[in-house]
C-alpha cells in the first residue's frame, strides 16, 4: 500500500479535494495516514492561530477612533451639503433675477420697425447719363486727370 508524504497531506489540507479523490479515499482507509493527517492539520491550525486576544481598552480605543473619524466625516458631509445648498440657492436667485431683469428690459429692447415713407420715384426721363463717363459732373473737379486719361486712351 502506498502511503502519502507529509507534503502531499499538506496539499490535501489546504486544497480541500473532494471525498472521491484518491488521497482522501486512502486517508479514510489507512489508520497510519489518518493519524499523520490529523497531527499535521492540528499543527497547522495551531500555527495559524492569530493572537487577536486584546484587552478591552484596545477595542474601546479603536471604537473611539472610528467614531471620531465618523463624526468628522458626518460634519464634513453636512458642511458640503450646506455649501451645495447655498450655491444652488445663489444660482437659482441669479437665474430668476436675470429672468426678471430681462423681462423688464425686454420691451425697450424690442425696437419698433421704422416706417420709412416711400421715396418719390423719379421718372427715368430725369436721369441724364452722359455718354462719356469721364464727362460726368462727379469728375469735373479732376479735369486735368480726366484729360490726361482721355489723351492716353486716344494714343492707344
Amino acid at each position: 500500500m502506498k502511503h502519502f508524504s507529509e507534503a502531499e497531506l499538506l496539499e490535501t489540507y489546504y486544497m480541500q479535494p473532494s471525498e472521491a479523490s484518491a488521497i482522501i479515499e486512502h486517508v479514510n482507509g489507512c489508520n497510519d495516514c489518518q493519524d499523520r493527517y490529523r497531527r499535521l492539520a492540528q499543527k497547522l491550525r495551531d500555527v495559524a492561530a492569530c493572537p487577536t486576544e486584546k484587552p478591552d481598552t484596545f477595542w474601546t480605543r479603536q471604537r473611539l477612533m472610528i467614531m471620531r473619524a465618523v463624526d468628522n466625516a458626518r460634519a464634513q458631509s453636512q458642511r458640503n451639503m450646506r455649501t451645495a445648498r447655498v450655491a444652488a440657492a445663489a444660482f437659482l436667485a441669479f437665474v430668476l433675477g436675470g429672468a426678471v431683469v430681462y423681462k423688464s428690459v425686454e420691451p425697450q429692447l424690442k425696437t419698433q420697425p421704422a416706417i420709412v415713407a416711400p421715396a418719390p420715384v423719379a421718372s427715368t426721363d430725369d436721369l441724364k447719363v452722359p455718354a462719356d463717363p469721364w464727362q460726368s459732373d462727379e469728375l469735373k473737379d479732376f479735369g486735368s486727370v480726366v484729360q490726361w486719361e482721355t489723351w492716353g486712351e486716344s494714343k492707344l
Partner: protein
Amino acid sequence: MGSVAIFRVTQINATAPSDSELIARTLGGDGGAFGLLVDRFQRKIYRVAYAIVRNEVEADTVTQDTFIQAYTHLAKFQGRSEFETWLTRIAINRSRDSLRRRRFVSLFTGGDDERPPEGWIEPVDDRPDPEREIMAHQLRAAIEKAQSTLSTQQKLIFRLRHYEDRSLEEIAGLLGLRSGTVRAHLFRAIHKIRKELAEWVTAREDSSNETL
C-alpha cells in the same frame, strides 16, 4: 431556574437590534447605531485584517479604515449580502492595498518586512512540551518565510485559507473571483510553500534521528 436562564438569553437576543435596523438608524442620522455595529464586528474585522497583513499596527489601521469607508458608503449597501460579508470584503481590499504598498516600499528600501529573521526561534517557556513548542515556532517561521516569495494575490488567498480557515468557495465569494481561479492561485502558493517546508521537514527528521 434553568428555564429562566434560557428565557433571559432569548429575551436579550430578541431585543438586540438586527444589522439592517442599525443600518437604517445610521442612515437616519443616529450615530450611536453605527457605534453598535462597530462594537459588533470590530473583532472579526481586525482578525481578518491581521490574518492578511500580519502586523498589529497595520491591522488596527485597516480595521479603522474599513469602518470609516463602510460609514461613508453605507447608502450604497443594498443588502444583497450580509453586512458582515460586505465589511469583510472592504477589509480584504484595504488589507490588499496595504500589502501592495508594503511591497512597493520594499522595492525602494530593498528590504522585505515580511521575512522573519534568520534562525528566528521564540524563547522557550515552561509549558509542558517545549520541544513541540519549538517545532511549532519553526513551522510557523518556515510558513512565514515561504510566504515572502508569493505574489500579493497568492499571499492574500493563502492567508485567508491558512489563518482564517475560509473555504475555497468563501474566498472566491469574498474576492469576487471564480472558484477555479482561487484554486489555481492556492495551488501555486502551496507548491512554493511545500518547497520551503521540505527543508523544514528534512531538518526536523535529521534532528529526530540525532535524538534517537
